[in-house]
């Protein structure tokens, strides 16, 4: 049985590797670093069955698709330059007018700052990759506190995750993933949507334990 710290570490890695999937794809690097294999084993070891299944299919798709196919589809879905098929920004889903830099974005920035982090990339703060990476950081920090038996700090970090997940990241994952599913037939990204949504559902449950 994995310890609590180990579980948290695995979650942290899940967030990180999922974040990586939302960067500009580099097929060779993804394959060399066994990105999808690692996702499969992480999800499996955590018992996240649907996410693991989806990651398995991502693995197959990655081996079959060319780098160009991945890049074109990535751009079409998440970059533009025309209509963004699946805008990867929280505010598009959380703000009434679907603009960026809304109040939800400020809330996201505030949490980054509270965690002692600042952005080191030229991107809107509520980009999916950034928000997932932030969760990776919080999970890792929590497990570090846990390993050092700093219970209060671990609790504080866990509370931040709950707030971030339930208020700022969790709510927009279903419509975002639906946009991807409706907007592509690319096996990698189609299954990435399932993988992300499946995983996030599990995490949300953790932060909202069924009474």
């Amino acid at each position, binding site marked *: 049985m994995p*310890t609590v*710290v*180990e579980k948290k*570490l695995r979650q942290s*890695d899940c967030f990180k*590797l999922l974040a*990586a999937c939302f*960067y*500009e794809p*580099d097929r060779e*690097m993804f394959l060399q*670093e066994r*990105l999808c294999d*690692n996702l499969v*084993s992480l999800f499996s070891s955590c018992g996240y069955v649907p996410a693991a299944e989806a990651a398995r299919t991502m693995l197959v798709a990655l081996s079959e698709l060319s780098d*160009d196919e991945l*890049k*074109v589809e*990535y*751009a*079409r879905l998440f*970059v*533009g*330059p*025309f*209509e*963004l098929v699946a*805008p990867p*920004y929280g*505010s*598009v889903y959380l703000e009434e*007018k*679907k*603009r*960026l*830099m809304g109040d939800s*974005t*400020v809330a996201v*920035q*505030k949490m*980054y*700052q*509270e965690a*002692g*982090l*600042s*952005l*080191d*990339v*030229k*991107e809107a703060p509520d*980009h999916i*990759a950034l928000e997932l*990476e932030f969760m*990776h*950081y919080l999970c*890792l920090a929590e*497990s*570090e506190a846990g*390993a050092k038996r700093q219970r209060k700090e671990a609790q504080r970090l866990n509370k931040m995750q709950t707030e971030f997940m339930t208020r700022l990241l969790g709510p927009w994952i279903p419509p975002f993933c639906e946009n991807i599913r409706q907007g592509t037939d690319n096996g990698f990204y189609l299954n990435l949507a399932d993988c992300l949504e499946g995983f996030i559902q599990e995490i949300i449950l953790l932060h909202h334990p069924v009474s």
Partner: protein
Amino acid sequence: MKIKRRDFLKLSVAAGAAATVGKPTLNAFAATTKKAGSIGELPGEWKASTCQGCTTWCPVEVFVQDGRAVKVRGNPHSKQNDGYVCPRGHMSLQQVYDPDRVKMPMKRTNPKKGRGIDPKFVPVSWDEAFSTIADKMMELRKAGEPEKYLLMRGRYTYMRDLIYDGVTKIFGSPNNISHSAICAEAENFGAMFTEGMWGYRDYDISNSKYLLVWGCDPVSSNRMIPAAISRLGDVLDNATVAVVDPKLNNTAAKAQEWLPLLPGTDGAVALAIAHVLLTEGLWYKEFVGDFKDGENLFKAGAIVDETAFAEKESHGVVKWWNIAVKDMTPAKAAEISQVPADQIIRVARGMAKAAPNVAVWMGPGAAMQVRGAYSAMAVNALNGLVGGVDNVGGTLPSNKVPVKKMPSLSAYQDELAKKHSKLKKIDQRGSKAFPALKEGKPGGGVVTNNTATGILDADPYDIKVVVGYMNNFAFSCSGAERWEKAMEKIPFFVHITTNAAEMTQYADIVLPGAISKYEKLCWVKQKQNRYAQCTLLQPVVEPMWEAINDETEFPWMLGEKFAERGFPNLIDFLKKEFKDPETGKEATNSKEFTEYAVKYYTQDMWNGKDVGGDKINGWAEFKKRGMWNSDPQPYKTRWGGKFGKDEEKDGKKTTKGTVSHKFEFYSETLKKALGKHAEKHKTTVDDILATCNYTAKGELAFVPHYEPPFRYGSVQEYPFTFIDYKSRLNREGRSQNSPWYYEFKHCDPGDVGHQDSLQINPVDAGKLGLKDGDAIRVTSVVGSIECTAHLWEGVRPGTVAKAFGQGHWAYGRTASKDYAKAVPRGGNNNTLMPFDTERLSGGNVRNGGFTGVKIERV
């Protein structure tokens, strides 16, 4: 966005290994030293910039909190907008935070180009993007054909010199083509060939006693919008406001008089007003002069002896009367224009009573017509007849804005560049059919829309490399589909833009442009309410993505790549000629260069030199204030024979302004210009006018006169005359992806929110069996669009009106219905309006009822 380090993909805990917590591998974050909790708690700050939503170019301030722009107001220092902005000013917030913006350089991977064909863009680095562009351009120089490079300029700031002239001429091409002719060049023509000024007028409406607005809507467009909004109420109290426009616009809705003329009959109404003023002896005698013996000889239909009249500030009033005015009675004009004769008489008498405190505010509606040049002259001539030119409450030229000129390029042009930058231009200006008489010089102006012809016909040669910035001619030029064909033909096209649009569909490289007002550093000048202004656009927020300043950073980055390829001339020019005026330092990167260049141009307004106007102590203060106001424009500066001035430079004699040095009712200036053009093509002025689709012959060519409107499509087949107008929410064609555009569309009279409406008179709708809200297809001789019928009495029977702006088939999520399938949201007016130009000025045609349409229910 790329993964910066491979470590990011490594697991923190290896499978099967015991968990040990290590340092986090971060890709997008860094540890911060900022005090926690400061976001959302620090007070914000008003930061000065300039709105470029229209050509008012309002000095503004943006409220920035936590690095986020949240509110916009007019710059309190502004003597132009009194600290207020119009709806456009606020709307821009939805542009800067538009998720569909171009976010990074991208390249096309699908070589096939066309509407509905996915270009398959992928992100590329700046280095790859600029290396590709430089390689393509240098190939042209190597082949000895640099003229095959074309720069297409859209909405510019006054940093335009660098990309427009600097890059193009040092590289060696004559083809720097501006958008200006799709703006309102024919309007400038009207001012040029009466009062000798190729430019837009200022209006002293605070002191007007009569304001005659012609073919525009000052509270929604035409260069002093917030000023007009805040003053119109007082003007309505203190003066009479009359509006000549086939459609009931905002100003007309409030005005005491609305003259809904048939589109394109402006010349007849203007002449009839002149007819009343002259026959009733109501012209302003201090300006125009009088009959020597005091008896008014202007009798309807009667020829007058020129020697009987002694003119003062004007030239040729009697000639004008004899050639064009004497027969245009109000009754005749009423028959032509459908404006009642008694209304024409009433307006003329009202103007006379208020003279000289009268402003005739001419807009593009009076001018941008197939035969609009003479209408524009006729309308502007009224300013002369009532003495409102350069006068209290009238029309004014602008005070000087003391900016530096661009340094000479010649030392940086090699032999190839010197020779080839003088070749013929691709827009065919100056050819027999396109006189484009800017400033009175044949071929002096641009014929923007005809560039597509040049490209399609490879005449005078084929174009191989094109850079376009902040333009979208495949949507914004009439006969837009011609541009699609032209763009398909261009082998290599670079589009610098904030949002991908129809032209981007044909791009090989897309570069993200900075949003003006929020992310750019540059300057513009404008005038309103007697004050000229120089105002800075400043980066008040950090762009979310890496966007460049098109006019300064593009030249710099290209210059660096040229230098790597053995052609350092461009970067040398930028470095050596735009040193920091304060420290003398050369720029080392594109951002520094931008700042030094802005400082170079504007230095005299902040470096302690006495140039009048606001006193500003240094660059830092100028940036903080964001603007400089001139002293008020004095009145009557050109009275006393100063409407023109003879100059001699390098032994060459030229005239600036009018040839007679007076306000010309008989245009010696146009006579000279047309004569030169005819001589160049070894033909007669009559032949030139016929070639340019005018009916005038003989002396009529040199006076403001009435030309019957030219219409595409027979009345039998296309019974409705189409009126195109500008929405008060159009932000230089870049607001259609903003949700507010649709939400507030009803602020245009006769428009409905969330709808692209064709306004149709209920009488006509009844005949067609159409109900309000019916989906309709509108068809002209060149194209067909679908939109929604809106029944409205603000258009006269027989005419239909529609705001320009909607109908994008390639744009973002809000502006297009389905980009992938190229399905537009609404319909583009330029699909209906055929390609044509007012050839004497080069102006693109969009007014004057030149398009007949038929309407069917879908």
